[in-house]
């Protein structure tokens, strides 16, 4: 089988990319999705708060997804469901597998990587203790409760205060479970303030900062976990141990872009985000292969995923239609200054710049009253005051093409956080 644009993943990123590619004139688009339905993780995110930026209303996850699924269906975009991609070659030949077709290949002119991310598992956390039943990632518990209607446990401790953990604290409580505590290793929560208030404070669930799990007890099923405070070096402080009886431990300790396919095909990955290194067109190190959404870098809001993915879809369409300038060797790198963990993109090519360039990034710490500064060479070309920057929130700067082209010799754009 041959196609103009193949989209790997039918979650929010894949859907938005497909719609935009189609609308920009490439009708031959195919979405490959391993699940039996489109929408990705949104299907189990039944809480509200999605779509405030895109639709100016608060939707639940499934409602947000359906808006995009409807658009895909209106356009008759081909969707191969229950189809898992097992390999992509650097020549853009996709090997996929499904019950219906067995193993088959698709030759694509362009590919949009939109596989999303997955949760950091217990094995990656080095949590001591037994390995009994009753330890789940928060997202697994979310699937059991919100899709299958099954309760993973009744007395719960949650490690990690990311948004999924906070949302599940409320969800389990409303379903009748007792959530004893949410423990967070860092001295601040990575979750949104709104979730801390409405998921924990509303239900009197304690949030224990600078605290981690140092032991898990129980042979067949979890019977208790032991929490302890940690010092500045993240080491448990003797004497602060607290044993909590429970039958369930949920882990909400970060998300990792799912890039096995990308690395197999030879796409350059960033060691910081775990996602592809992309240029101004969201194009990876392989020509005609684009990336967007949580497989590129983990986003805070799905609205930004949709926006980024639709840009990737447009660039893929331009590539296929031959409207894109061939990539030159001459690049302007984007570097991370004080406080900035990473940027997307990591570089721009001057001859492919559009009128406005959006650079998305995250900071590594909580900064009060910071200034976000952009340097071109030695010259500061943008400076913006903010009340706060926090690791849990994505930040962005928007640069004008004219400002970047103003200095012919500049080889580097630097983003930095400055505080007084």
């Amino acid at each position: 089988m041959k196609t103009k644009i193949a989209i790997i993943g039918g979650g929010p990123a894949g859907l938005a990319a497909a719609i935009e590619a189609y609308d920009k004139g490439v009708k031959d688009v195919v979405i490959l999705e391993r699940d039996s339905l489109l929408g990705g993780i949104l299907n189990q995110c039944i809480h509200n708060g999605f779509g405030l930026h895109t639709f100016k209303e608060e939707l639940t996850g499934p409602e947000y997804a359906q808006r995009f699924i409807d658009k895909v269906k209106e356009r008759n975009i081909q969707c191969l469901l229950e189809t898992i991609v097992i390999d992509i070659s650097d020549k853009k030949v996709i090997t996929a597998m499904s019950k219906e077709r067995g193993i088959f290949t698709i030759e694509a002119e362009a590919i949009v990587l939109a596989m999303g991310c997955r949760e950091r598992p217990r094995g990656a956390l080095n949590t001591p203790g037994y390995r009994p039943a009753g330890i789940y990632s928060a997202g697994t518990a979310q699937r059991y409760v919100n899709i299958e209607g099954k309760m993973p446990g009744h007395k719960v401790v949650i490690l990690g205060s990311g948004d999924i953990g906070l949302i599940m604290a409320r969800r389990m409580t409303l379903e009748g479970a007792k959530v004893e505590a949410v423990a967070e290793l860092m001295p601040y929560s990575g979750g949104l303030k709104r979730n801390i208030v409405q998921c924990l404070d509303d239900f009197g669930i304690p949030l224990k900062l600078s605290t981690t799990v140092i032991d898990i007890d129980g042979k067949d099923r979890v019977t208790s976990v032991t929490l302890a405070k940690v010092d500045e070096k993240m080491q448990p402080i003797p004497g602060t141990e607290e044993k909590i009886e429970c039958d369930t431990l949920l882990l909400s300790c970060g998300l990792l872009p799912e890039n096995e396919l990308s690395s197999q095909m030879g796409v350059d990955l960033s060691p910081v985000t775990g996602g592809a290194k992309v240029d101004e067109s969201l194009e990876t190190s392989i020509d005609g292969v684009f990336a967007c959404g949580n497989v590129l870098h983990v986003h805070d809001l799905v609205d930004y995923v949709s926006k980024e993915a639709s840009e990737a879809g447009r660039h893929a369409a331009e590539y296929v239609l031959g409207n894109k300038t061939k990539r030159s060797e001459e690049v302007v790198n984007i570097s991370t200054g004080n406080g900035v963990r990473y940027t997307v993109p990591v570089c721009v090519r001057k001859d492919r710049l559009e009128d406005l360039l959006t650079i998305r990034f995250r900071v590594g710490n909580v900064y009060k009253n910071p200034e976000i500064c952009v340097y071109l060479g030695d010259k500061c070309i943008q400076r913006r005051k903010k009340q706060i920057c926090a690791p849990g929130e994505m930040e962005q700067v928007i640069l004008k093409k004219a400002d970047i082209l103003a200095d012919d010799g500049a080889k580097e754009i630097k983003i930095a956080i400055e505080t007084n």
Partner: protein
Amino acid sequence: MQTRNLTCIGCPMGCALTVEYTPGDKDSIKVTGYTCQRGLKYAIDEVTNPTRTVTGTIRVSNRKNLVVSVKTKDPIPKDKIDAVAEKLKEISVKAPTKIGDVALSNIENTGVDLVITKNID
């Protein structure tokens, strides 16, 4: 006179708000700790009429191992959250379901309908 400590949810600042008020007397409300108007409004709403949208799931009676997601169409008074959550355990719908279908009107006398948020074929 009562005192309540709140965390503003308007932005990541999460200002620590203190509200002093006499219940039932709107004019008595005194808010401190806010740094913008959103904080002031949030604090007043929280002590006069706090509301939340409740989301959850209900059983799909003609399907195995499947529930369907629902929400209150509008925010309901915060003190009704538990009653609404309990009610969700009692009711069920039949597939197919469609986004926006009313699963239960005027849930727990809130004047707000419970609506389906997921299409199931």
